[in-house]
């Protein structure tokens, strides 16, 4: 049967992998090409690169990094961050990305998701949804953009359904409340979205230990789990994570 996927996430700025807590206090975690190769060796099912470069001067760096990684690592590569137009998608795919993740632009211009999906196929369009629990709306989780700073008034579950309808082949669901906290995924959020759509969902935000990965699949209904810091600082290898999931009855690729 199909295996649940483990996806290490590499936040890249100015050509280096970093990791922060709620987008603050960024710590250097190393060279992206070296880290990508290490995770591939450990049995990562895919890799996600998130370009969080602030200055436009260094935007091109991510293309160079993806080219380097794609000629040495032969598993699916997803790249996101700063994808604004269909042309950005084309550039990333040409550099060697297999999927491109669209976040803020999907909210500002949903048509772009549809255009990109019809031009390159749904299989390479991932929509990233940053959601936060709110108590001032008639729904439970609201979509935020701009790295979690801007509320949109959109219901995350309804938004997920709409994005899948427009052609997103996969959804990357990040809980802004959990990101960097190490207290586990927001499983009720992931479960609500997973039940609402037919496309696969990737759970993101909050992993602190291996049981959180198991819970993400079993409780949250995630098809794939994404984690960064537990792998970057050598707490666990991807292989250890997979072995733990397998011991807990989850199908994995070992």
């Amino acid at each position: 049967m199909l295996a649940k996927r483990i996806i290490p996430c590499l936040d890249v700025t100015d050509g280096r992998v970093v990791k922060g807590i709620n987008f603050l206090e960024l710590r250097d975690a190393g060279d992206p090409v070296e880290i990508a190769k290490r995770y591939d060796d450990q049995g990562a099912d895919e890799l996600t690169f998130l370009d969080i470069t602030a200055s436009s001067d260094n935007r091109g760096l991510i293309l160079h990094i993806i080219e380097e990684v794609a000629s040495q690592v032969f598993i699916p590569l997803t790249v996101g961050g700063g994808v604004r137009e269909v042309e950005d998608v084309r550039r990333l795919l040409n550099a060697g990305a297999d999927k491109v993740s669209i976040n803020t632009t999907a909210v500002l211009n949903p048509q772009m998701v549809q255009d990109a999906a019809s031009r390159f196929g749904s299989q390479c369009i991932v929509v990233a949804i940053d959601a936060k629990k709110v108590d001032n709306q008639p729904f439970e989780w609201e979509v935020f953009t701009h790295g979690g700073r801007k509320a949109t008034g959109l219901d995350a579950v309804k938004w997920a359904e709409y994005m899948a309808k427009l052609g997103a082949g996969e959804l990357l669901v990040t809980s802004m409340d959990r990101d960097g906290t190490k207290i586990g995924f927001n499983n009720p959020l992931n479960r609500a979205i997973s039940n609402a759509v037919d496309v696969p969902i990737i759970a993101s935000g909050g992993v602190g230990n291996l049981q959180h990965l198991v819970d993400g699949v079993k409780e949250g209904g995630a098809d794939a789990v994404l984690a960064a810091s537990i792998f970057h600082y050598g707490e666990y290898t991807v292989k250890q994570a997979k072995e733990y999931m397998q011991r807990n009855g989850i199908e994995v690729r070992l």
Partner: protein
Amino acid sequence: MKKIDIAVVDYGMGNLRSVSKALEHVAPNKNVLVTSNPADIENADRIVFPGQGAMPDCIRELDARGLRSSVMHAAGNKPFLGICIGLQMLFEHSEEGDAAGLGLFKGNVKRFATVDMHDENGEKLKVPHMGWNQVYQNRNQQSEAHALWSNIEDGARFYYVHSYYVQPDDTSIIGGYSEYPQQFTSAIAQDNLFAVQFHPEKSATAGLQMLSNFVNWLP
């Protein structure tokens, strides 16, 4: 003109970089050319026929570049590897857009049902079928495994991303299958042609082994 060892057919759909990079990786001394020129396809020793996106668009773009006859010709006379939509296009008809394929093989391309597909834990199975699934090499039909399965474990996992699968009329061409949750054909084999639904170029060690097997295949 430099000899073309492997031509990757480019008809303007999707990203062929992954395929060519993986071929270059397993065959560093071979000349791998991504091309939309029918003459290159005629001249190349081996053909890789990839595909991404929607099948009706793929067929339309293939025809727009005048590539149909050279691809059909190559499929009949030299080592030929179809990947993903490059497998689906070889069939008569696809449910996707109710489109006609190249018709090299009798049979249909069907969509996974989105309702009532569940795993053993009762979890809904998603479409597209995306990720790493086991591929069984159909050894019960052939006394020996096909050359493209050399050094690959029966049941090894390969990376898939697709919503449609092929259903050949002639089951003797089935060279491999997977389960989601029903059995579906994930490889076909006939003479000089081998075609797969999964992506060997994205399937780590097992995928690179298959590409290496293809580069050295003498059907």
